[in-house]
């Protein structure tokens, strides 16, 4: 892709906006359409675009596969950890009401953290899948 100057320039321009949009979908998810899964896929698409245009080697430098694997697990732990927090604060597993001073605040906080966990795992899993398929020939 070294000779495709247009693609390189446009991607460079687009990638920050893709990431910003991912963050918007992630954190605005409880007021509008969106949520962790969609945000995770959008975030991963920024990395995948980078990998397609600038090569797998560079993509691996930006997102080291070891770190990405850790993030897959971390997302699940964020999700489950929120559930356990509800349990420790006297509610049932995944009961957000007890997380903050008021039930409404708790619901807001709970779903925000949970969706962040989902987003982390989905983005990391998508990037891992891309790396595995792209690196298959070697």
């Amino acid at each position, binding site marked *: 892709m070294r000779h495709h100057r247009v693609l390189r320039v446009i991607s460079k321009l687009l990638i920050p906006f893709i990431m910003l949009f991912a963050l918007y979908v992630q954190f605005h998810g409880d007021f509008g359409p969106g949520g962790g899964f969609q945000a995770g896929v959008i975030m991963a698409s920024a990395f995948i675009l980078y990998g397609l245009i600038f090569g797998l080697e560079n993509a691996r430098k930006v997102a080291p596969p070891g770190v990405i694997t*850790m993030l897959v697990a971390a997302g*699940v*732990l964020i999700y489950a950890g929120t*559930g356990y927090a*509800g349990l420790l604060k006297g*509610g049932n*597993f995944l009961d957000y009401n007890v997380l903050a001073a008021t039930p409404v605040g708790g619901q807001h906080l709970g779903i925000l953290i949970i969706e962040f966990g989902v987003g982390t795992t989905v983005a990391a899993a998508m990037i891992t899948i891309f790396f595995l398929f792209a690196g298959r020939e070697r």
Partner: protein
Amino acid sequence: MAANLIPHLPALQVIIPLVAAPLCLLAGRTGFAWVIAFIASVAATITAAALAYLTYHDGTISYHMGGWAPPWGIEYVVDTANAFILLLVSSIATMVLIYSPASVAKEIRPGRGHLYYCMYILCLTGLLGIAITGDAFNVFVFLEVSSLSSYALIAMGGQRKALTAAFQYLVMGTIGATFFLIGVGLLYMMTGTLNMADLAKRIPEIQDSRPVLAAFAFITVGLALKAALFPLHLWLPNAYAYAPSGVSAFMAATATKVSLYVLLRFTFTIFGAEFAFGNLPLSWVLLVPAVIAMFAGSFSAMFQRDIKRMLAYSSVAQIGYITLAISLGTNAGVMAALVHIFNHGLMKAALFCAMGCIFYRIGSTRIDQMAGLGRQMPWTFAAIVAGGLSLLGVPLTAGFISKWYLVQAAMQSGLWILVVLIAVSSMLALVYVWRLVEALYFKEPNPGRETVAEAPMSMLVPTLLLAGANIYFGIDTRVPVAMAENAANLLMQGLGQ
């Protein structure tokens, strides 16, 4: 602290192994990952035992996930029927985990051990989740959790054929899960609910409508595929034959059993015995494939050169017995099915573990490589004999108890021909078990093969414990029979009333 935990036991049953899976991945080293998986598995077994005790004495327990009341939220419901399954799945998982380190070191590529335990404990999470949940869609979610992890586990088998076996299972398993999901979707469309108890209340009003009939058909076929009922068993022999030893033992003992439990739950609790067996011919739909499975499975088993494949075909036959018991549609039939689910889990876990011991020493499970091995590995041989006798249904083994209740259930329904068929097909099992014993004990060792030692203690002890359980539960039948009886009564009553 302990008293505070008791109301949360149904959630802990699933979320302890669930958290262990990412921790195994983060651990990065095989040893650490094993410790995490083992702790989680032991905790799950203790939880299951506590739940079994509580449900047996105090009745059904309901847990509201996230504090949302059913039918809107996801409800976990534990009664004796699923507590029994939970106990079987988690205790087999623990036994096989004790057994695993040596076989993983031998069979799994270095650097992948922690991924093995991650997938293993995730598979356990899925199976426990399927059994415990009271929500029809949640069953599908956990079905996928357990299936996806088991595809990965099978693909970790040493031979290249493990990859095709895993792919074959992936295709078939996905079709099965999709069928199940279509059925659940149709039910949701008709009733607007996914909660099992709520479904049971709403279905009788609309039970003659086409979508409900279609839903029942889709769910039954989908689950029959996951349970490997003849003729939908084609994925099973390769999957069990090429998977790593520990995975074969764990999956053969638990995975298909959990699908059969879901079939029981949907047929009896949600749709109701009268609908399934009175209005619809479920009896014949299950009976005919079950009888064919009993014979075709055993016949195929006789001609296998690879013993893991032979045991896999034997599983097809044994699933035939369980389905036969379900197809009677009576209290006695359901009880016989549950008893055999438990006992067959013990047999196959012991036999596949013993095969793993042999594979550990000679690197093969082909019968021509095994000649004379019984005298060099006497304890492994003893475990095979105990498991084999149990498979035949010889008195004083767990298998006899299963056959006893199965024959009784058939007689109660007045189906004498089934009694004959059960007896004849048990004789077929004698042929393939004897073939194995003969090769192991009476044949002279191949001149080319070196004399081998007994398998390491860490593999031998769990194998012998599982084999011993086959004898123990053949003599002291109180626990499984009492639980199965209680569970059968509960299932026959249905939830709606």
